[in-house]
């Protein structure tokens, strides 16, 4: 069984051309859109977060299944591992925000005379913001590196101690992530609207992260399978991933709905203003997001066969990926750019540029190790996976 993956030249060309298209679109954007620095920084933040989330999903997926004693995922674990290799790049990109804070975060302005924002200054201040950022990345990168290392060590030895160590690392990551996922979403996304607050927000962002990660995961599997790899991934694995996509799309909708409904219901201005801005400024986008992230995957993946068909699954996953990108866009842009913001060349171009680079990093990482791990005590279970 050949489990090694080599990036073909064609693939490399595709990745490169995605980035080039991105650059071209950005150039067009500069020509026609007259972007302010705000627009540029907004795109940087948006794509930073989006691809960081995909990468974080990689670590999360492994950690989650490890502590749940899951067997079925083992044969697939190289892919999330590869996703997690993007984290250091994401860290560098996030730290670029040092130069864009003024454009992105209203609360960094000095002459506000806003008692509410002043009241938050113990938390919302630039130094602490970056200290927290450093802590998050240190934890994520460190633990994801250790988890990958642990996985490699298991490949070389059939000693179960690596299995046990892996569980400890996974538990540590889960604990760290449980807190940091919420705080990061407050820091980086919620504080864009510095008056607004919602306790559910962190979990809502988290579930978006999970859904987009699953979708990316499915797409990578579909791509690799189309290249003739991953023959050990059977329909049962796909079915489970399909169920994940299906189930978590519903869960995303559940959280979206309750956050919206509770605010709609109480109708307290300091909360409703968040949705009022989005509904008034972006009515189409507002509902498109619901369709792409919930209605479409829900209907498309309802039947058993839909979840077992790789092509169909990949198509749904692509839609969800677009939906989640738009979701983050709508969380950020009304706060940064106001209600008149539009998705134009700059936004799409920047996304393409990021996507090319991201794919390059991921597939590079995939090609460095065999696609199938060895010696994992649950590996055999994963092969014999059936309902």
């Amino acid at each position, binding site marked *: 069984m050949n489990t090694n993956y080599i990036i073909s030249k064609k693939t490399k060309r595709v990745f490169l051309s995605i980035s080039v298209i991105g650059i071209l679109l950005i150039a067009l954007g500069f020509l026609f859109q007259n972007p302010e620095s705000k627009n540029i920084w907004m795109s940087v933040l948006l794509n930073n977060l989006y691809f960081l989330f995909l990468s974080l999903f990689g670590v999360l997926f492994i950690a989650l299944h490890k502590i749940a004693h899951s067997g079925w995922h083992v044969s697939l674990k190289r892919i999330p591992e590869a996703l997690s290799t993007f984290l250091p790049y994401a860290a560098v990109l996030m730290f670029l925000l040092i130069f864009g804070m003024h454009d992105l975060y209203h609360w960094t302005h000095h002459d506000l005379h806003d008692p509410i924002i002043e009241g938050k200054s113990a938390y919302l201040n630039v130094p602490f913001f970056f200290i927290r950022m450093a802590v998050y990345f240190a934890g994520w990168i460190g633990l994801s590196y250790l988890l990958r290392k642990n996985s490699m060590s298991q490949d070389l030895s059939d000693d179960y101690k690596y299995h046990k160590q892996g569980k400890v690392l996974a538990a540590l990551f889960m604990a760290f992530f449980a807190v940091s996922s919420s705080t990061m979403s407050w820091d980086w996304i919620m504080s864009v609207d510095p008056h607004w607050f919602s306790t559910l927000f962190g979990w809502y962002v988290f579930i978006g992260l999970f859904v987009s990660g699953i979708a990316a995961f499915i797409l990578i599997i579909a791509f690799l399978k189309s290249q003739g790899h991953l023959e050990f991934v059977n329909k049962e694995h796909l079915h489970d991933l399909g169920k994940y996509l299906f189930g978590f799309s519903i869960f995303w909708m559940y959280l979206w709905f309750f956050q919206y*409904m509770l605010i*709609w219901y109480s109708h307290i201005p300091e909360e409703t203003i968040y949705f009022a801005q989005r509904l008034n400024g972006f009515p189409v986008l507002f509902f498109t997001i619901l369709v792409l992230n919930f209605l479409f995957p829900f209907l498309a993946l*309802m*039947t058993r066969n839909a979840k077992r068909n790789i092509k169909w699954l990949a198509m749904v996953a692509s839609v969800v990926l677009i939906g989640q990108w738009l979701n983050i866009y709508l969380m950020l842009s009304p706060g940064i750019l106001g209600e008149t913001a539009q998705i134009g060349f700059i936004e799409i171009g920047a996304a393409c540029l990021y996507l090319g680079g991201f794919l390059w990093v991921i597939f590079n990482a995939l090609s460095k190790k065999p696609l199938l791990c060895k010696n994992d005590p649950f590996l055999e279970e994963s092969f014999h996976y059936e309902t």
Partner: protein
Amino acid sequence: MRRYISAYFTDEEDLLRASKILMEKEISILDVLTPFPVHGLDKVLGLKESKLPTVGFIAGAIGTIFAFGFQTWAFVVDYPLFIGGKPHFAIPAFIPITFEVTVLFAAFAMVFAFLFRSKLGLGAKNKIHDERITDDRFVIIIDANESDEHFENVKNILEHEDAHDIQLKENQ
């Protein structure tokens, strides 16, 4: 009067094997009775996928439309009240009940469909072949009306596949 063969097994693996061979030999199996669901047996016997999910989906969809429609009708058309300054057509507030009714309809429809299709229910008088079937016996029931030769043939196969006991029974 109907005759049939009851073949008793004590292990599901034997049962699966025997069923497979019987199916291959195109010997018609009337029924297989087991104390618990034996994994893969339905595939071996070539049973069609159950339509219960479809029933559930349709009933659920009816529930959705009914619940949402009813709330809308009651609040917008039949008796619009001013409540808390909210619009009469208060979509977010209608969702929870819509969801619950959907689940309720789907669940009940499926359960009734299951009972109806399986002829199960309060006071259903299905024949109990053997009291051990609900304990530890796996039974294949084969039509034995054709001929003695057929019976022998079947018996041989079954014995070969470790059948614990083979009986010829008659139906009143």
